[in-house]
């Protein structure tokens, strides 16, 4: 499915914010942490992710964005519990998969194959005593047990090339790689089974801006090539506006505003969205809300 050929809906104004059909629909998802007193981490969140689209999920720490992402991928573990709502994955084959109903073997088959995830701080989640080859091959050993060894090795090398890492690095251990390279390896791992959806939870937050830029560009390039959809989670609203097609803003477990990035940027409706936007002083524009009172007075030395 090529996202660029999809139908343009009426509300879309830009040529390139074309949307395909939905690939993941979540309706009224509520997630609770069963502690005392219970914490309602996600309340009635509904999102629709379209094929090939980048959906930005913005919000501050504690707003429930990671919990929601875990819920979509059925990764919640006690005390977190999905108390309501439905998550449906619309497979490329045409079949609809009820994600909430999956268990055991069917769940294992679903995860990573259809929806993969790049975890928060994932560059530190590589196993330090296994080389990259072994960790990448692990995915195939589990999900494609019939794959031949040579085939597996070739695919691992191909994956690294895809994310811009020299395949010679397959024999490297994580500590021999820079943070940016480790992050790329994690993305390669998430790409391994050619998923239709990738959930990226703060994939670049711990990285330097220049490295971050390289990785974002890589993600965008891969999306054009492979056509997967992305749920991109971060608190960095300017970045989201720059790269995503649509944005959902979360506050205290609820999605308070959802719309095309341009609309969120130019005409934010919810006061919280406006506040979040004004938290980022403009790099090149006017000073805006941020008035540094001390500047002029002490200026002349």
């Amino acid at each position, binding site marked *: 499915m090529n996202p660029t050929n999809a139908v343009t809906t009426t509300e879309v104004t830009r040529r*390139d914010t074309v949307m395909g059909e939905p690939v993941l629909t979540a309706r009224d998802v509520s997630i609770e942490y069963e502690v005392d007193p219970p914490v309602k981490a996600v309340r009635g969140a509904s999102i629709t992710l379209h094929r090939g689209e980048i959906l930005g999920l913005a919000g501050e720490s504690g707003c429930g964005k990671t919990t929601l992402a875990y819920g979509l991928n059925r990764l919640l573990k006690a005390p977190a519990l999905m108390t309501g709502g439905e998550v449906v994955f619309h497979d490329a084959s045409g079949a609809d998969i009820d994600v909430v109903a999956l268990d055991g073997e069917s769940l294992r088959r679903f995860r990573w194959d259809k929806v993969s995830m790049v975890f928060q701080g994932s560059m530190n989640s590589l196993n330090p005593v296994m080389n990259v080859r072994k960790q990448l091959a692990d995915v195939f050993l589990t999900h494609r047990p019939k794959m031949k060894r040579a085939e597996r090795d070739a695919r691992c090398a191909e994956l690294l090339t895809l994310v811009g890492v020299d395949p010679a690095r397959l024999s490297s251990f994580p500590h021999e790689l820079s943070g940016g390279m480790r992050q790329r390896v994690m993305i390669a791992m998430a790409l391994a089974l050619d998923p239709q959806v990738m959930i990226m939870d703060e994939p670049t937050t711990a990285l330097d*801006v220049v490295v971050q*830029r390289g990785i974002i560009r890589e993600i965008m390039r891969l999306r054009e090539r492979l056509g997967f959809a992305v749920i991109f989670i971060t608190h960095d*609203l300017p970045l989201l506006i*720059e790269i995503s097609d649509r944005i959902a803003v979360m506050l205290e477990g609820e999605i308070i505003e959802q719309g095309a*990035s341009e609309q969120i940027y130019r005409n934010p409706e919810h006061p919280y969205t406006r506040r979040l936007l004004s938290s980022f002083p403009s*790099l090149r524009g006017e000073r805006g809300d941020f008035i540094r009172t001390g500047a002029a007075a*002490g200026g002349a030395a």
Partner: protein
Amino acid sequence: MSGHDRAGEPTTLEARNLVKDFRLRSGVNVRTLHAVKDVSFTLEPGRTIALVGESGSGKSTIARMMAKLETPSSGEILLDGRQSATRGRGLARYRRDVQMVFQDPFSSLNPFHPIRHHLERPLRIHHPGLSSRQVRERADELLERVRLSPAATFADRRPHELSGGQRQRVAIARALAPGARFIIADEPVSMLDVSIRLGVLNLLADLQRQENLGVLYITHDLATARHFSDEILVMYRGEIVERGPSERVILDPQHEYTKTLLEAAADPDRLGRLRDEVRNGG
């Protein structure tokens, strides 16, 4: 006006040709890492210098040298035009004037002690003449000044009972407690939630104006560097590759590296451009 006291003596904190080398050992091999190469700048009262660069560029090493947590390999740090002490009573005096605000308010406060302790201790150390009551009053006053009021409700809490932003306010109050004239702020807001970052920076700017503080603001965020400082120094691999008035550096960068940094910063005005670029074979 600023920059000199009444007697015409300079009231500045100056870094002159600072160099820091680290010896790295891996097995029998020893190699030298030049973390900071010949860096000079002068902090003046009421003015802010922003030090920007990627991690590993040496900006935190500079902060640590200025706070005397690290000894320079060569070069000197001059306070009010005089060579600053490296030990003993001279160092204590230096620390009264130059204080640091650390990046992570979750680890810079001792979880065992109440907030009051964090403010009273520097007061006692640097002003041994104060009575217990005066120390208490000053601590309360400091809390009010960083807008943690009423002070009484915060003073007896422990760090874990405060939010990140509140903790960083405590860290700022702690830095002010000895009566500091210069503040070294090493990424003071990067660990905080985005919606409270500007509040903390504005607070710092307010205090700076009231106290005529000289601030060294270390950050990787170019946007706040532009709005919060008078001068920007761009560091790359231990060297200052560009320096100048903040507006000029951001709006009209000269050095290639500054341009790369600016190019990499997220800019909502470029919405959709990256997508078009990669689509057209970038």
